[in-house]
């Protein structure tokens, strides 16, 4: 059974030439651009990074062919995968931009060879599993399996100004360009199945049936997959940062082999109602975090404002010195540089500094600044986590508290995984339509192709040992 209507419609404004990349799977590129636009842009360009195209359109197409070749080598399917690809304006500002978007055009369930009954599979995967084209058409350009669109304005004024796509094939984009090859591999990954068809904002599954994705997307706090939850539970789960994980063993086993052991963390060991490992942003000043770190020390807040907060922008009062000496000092962000705060609590005898952010962003931002005289480690925590600790700290004395913590490297975790060894999925609060739950979390280290933002250190591989994308697609059914 096929479901097409709820997904992005396919409107090939101008189907150009179809290009194939022959491998274990054949990916056909159906150009959706009109004359002189996108892949047909005649602007002359010089060869770059192994791309011999002589026009902007040719170079773009060659990058797309390379992405199709890489995916085609990795995947196995007897049915060609048709990708409708084009260039158009996308949301952007001078400092940020949507690079591209892609997704499956249709989904199928209960076809011959479907691994799990009553479950939606993206059409390209369904075709591969069924061994036949479930959506045949005399003209492949009119029946794509994946639609992909890319930002035609990138790098122009007002659209990530001065940072265009890099069209080389060698992942050598430098610091002032965005690697188109990585973007294409990423977007094709979505179209091949790296996505859910369940709405993370409403929690509603497509036509009341789970996507194959939902059988693996797991909320650690509920110990349930999305396929096992109610709509309300899914809505809550979609913003449960650090609790939304991938439940499949293939991906998690592979992740443990490539993600960096040890994650920076604030690990609170008492009292019971705040015990846990808190995500932190590290600092560009002071010593690097280490293991076990500043271990099992009391947290004590600086209080120097009428509302009970503590900025630590000036030398600490005698009362604050008595509070933080020998302790982990808790201060609030703002008013002065983080290095000034660190210098002041260090002078008061604090052994580490926790900054409570003004934002609830997870992971918390890096504390920036430079001061070679800082000898204590500093970390940044989200506002809600800081408020949680402050509530626990309300029963303190002037010189001691019951909140005991370690600032350091948590060796029980890998970067981007939870303590149970499951890779974290992207679950920001508030939810980000189009990004939430259908990416790996941004804390994965080294960076992964399927994080919500493209990082500069990505190569052009979708397979182990560089990347987990193909492993995940295998877990949901690809071969």
């Amino acid at each position: 059974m096929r479901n097409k209507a709820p997904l992005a419609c396919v409107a090939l404004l101008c189907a150009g030439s179809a290009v194939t990349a022959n491998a274990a799977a054949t990916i056909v590129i159906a150009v959706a651009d009109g004359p002189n636009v996108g892949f047909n842009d005649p602007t002359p360009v010089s060869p770059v990074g192994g791309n011999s195209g002589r026009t902007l359109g040719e170079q773009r197409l060659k990058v797309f062919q390379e992405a199709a070749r890489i995916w085609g080598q990795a995947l196995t399917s007897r049915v060609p995968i048709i990708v409708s690809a084009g260039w158009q304006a996308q949301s952007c500002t001078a400092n940020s931009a949507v690079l591209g978007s892609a997704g499956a055009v249709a989904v199928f369930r209960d076809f011959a060879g479907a691994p799990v009954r009553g479950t939606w599979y993206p059409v390209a995967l369904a075709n591969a599993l069924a061994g036949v084209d479930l959506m045949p058409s005399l003209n492949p350009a009119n029946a794509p399996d994946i639609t992909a669109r890319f930002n035609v304005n990138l790098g122009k004024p007002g659209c990530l100004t001065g940072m265009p796509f890099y069209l080389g094939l060698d992942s050598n984009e430098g610091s002032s360009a965005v690697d188109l090859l990585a973007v294409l591999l990423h977007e094709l990954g979505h179209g091949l199945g790296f996505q859910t068809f369940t709405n993370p904002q409403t929690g509603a599954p497509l036509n009341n049936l789970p996507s194959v994705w939902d059988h693996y997307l797991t909320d650690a706090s509920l110990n349930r997959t999305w396929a096992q939850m109610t709509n309300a539970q899914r809505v809550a789960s979609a913003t449960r940062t650090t609790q939304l994980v991938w439940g499949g063993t293939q991906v998690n086993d592979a992740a443990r082999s490539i993600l960096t052991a040890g994650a920076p963390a604030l690990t609170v060991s008492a009292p019971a109602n705040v015990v846990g490992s808190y995500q932190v942003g590290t600092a560009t000043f002071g010593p690097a975090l280490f293991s076990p770190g500043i271990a099992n020390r009391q947290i004590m807040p600086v209080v120097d404002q009428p509302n009970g907060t503590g900025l630590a922008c000036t030398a600490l009062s005698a009362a604050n010195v008595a509070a933080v000496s020998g302790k982990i000092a808790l201060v609030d962000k703002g008013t002065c540089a983080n290095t000034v705060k660190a210098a002041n609590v260090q002078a008061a005898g604090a052994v580490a500094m926790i900054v409570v952010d003004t934002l609830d962003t997870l992971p918390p931002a890096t504390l920036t600044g430079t001061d070679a005289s800082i000898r204590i480690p500093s970390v940044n925590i989200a506002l809600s986590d800081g408020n949680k600790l402050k509530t626990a700290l309300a029963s303190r004395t002037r010189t001691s508290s019951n909140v005991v913590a370690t600032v350091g490297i948590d060796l029980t975790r890998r970067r981007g995984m939870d303590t149970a060894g499951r890779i974290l999925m992207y679950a920001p609060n508030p939810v980000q339509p189009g990004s939430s739950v259908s990416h790996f979390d941004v804390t994965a280290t080294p960076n992964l192709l399927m994080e919500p933002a493209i990082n500069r250190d990505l190569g052009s591989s979708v397979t182990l040992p560089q990347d987990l994308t193909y492993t995940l697609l295998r877990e949901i059914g690809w071969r």
Partner: protein
Amino acid sequence: MLLGSAGLRADVVLLSENFDDISTLTGNGWTLSNQSTPAVGVNPGWFQGEPNTFAARSGAANSYISANYLNASVGGNVRNWLILPQLTVGPNTVLTFYTSTDTSLFPGDVLTVQVAAAGSGTYNTLLTIGDPNSAAYPTGWTKYSVNVGGAVPANVDIALVYSVQDTSINGNVIGIDDLSVVNVTSAVPEPGAWLTLSVMLTGVALRKRRQQKEGV
């Protein structure tokens, strides 16, 4: 022996509280009321004892009730009331409790015992512990007893009030443990005491008879 037994006290315990779990206090008729000014943001009110601060006088390390200077905002005045269940007290009704702070470094912790006719809201201070301007609060568990009764039996509200003047420079933390309210009597034995005496008398008589028999 009979003459000696006639002088036994027969105290009646009206209330006994070890603060093992202060979440049960409200359900048992206690009132916990933080009337500090200003009290903006997080303030803990009365809270379960913190073993890191000091251990309880008896029971589990946290089985005491505690309050601190954070019940008022920075520079404010703490008035944190702990009101016992309403009781009928007589001429010899005694409130006993233990209290402590953790260090003599900080001045200004004060605890008062106040009594009001039930529901009147007009409290009279019977006992003051500590000093608003110095570090006079006891730094180890110290016992305090105060007669909270009047000339005739009456229903009363008994309150322990933790106070600090200007939390920017004063106040730290206090704990209270092993509180009781007892009607202390000595002249008229209660029925239970009579029974005890009766048993003793019988015991004495039996023993005497046995001695007499043995003496034959």
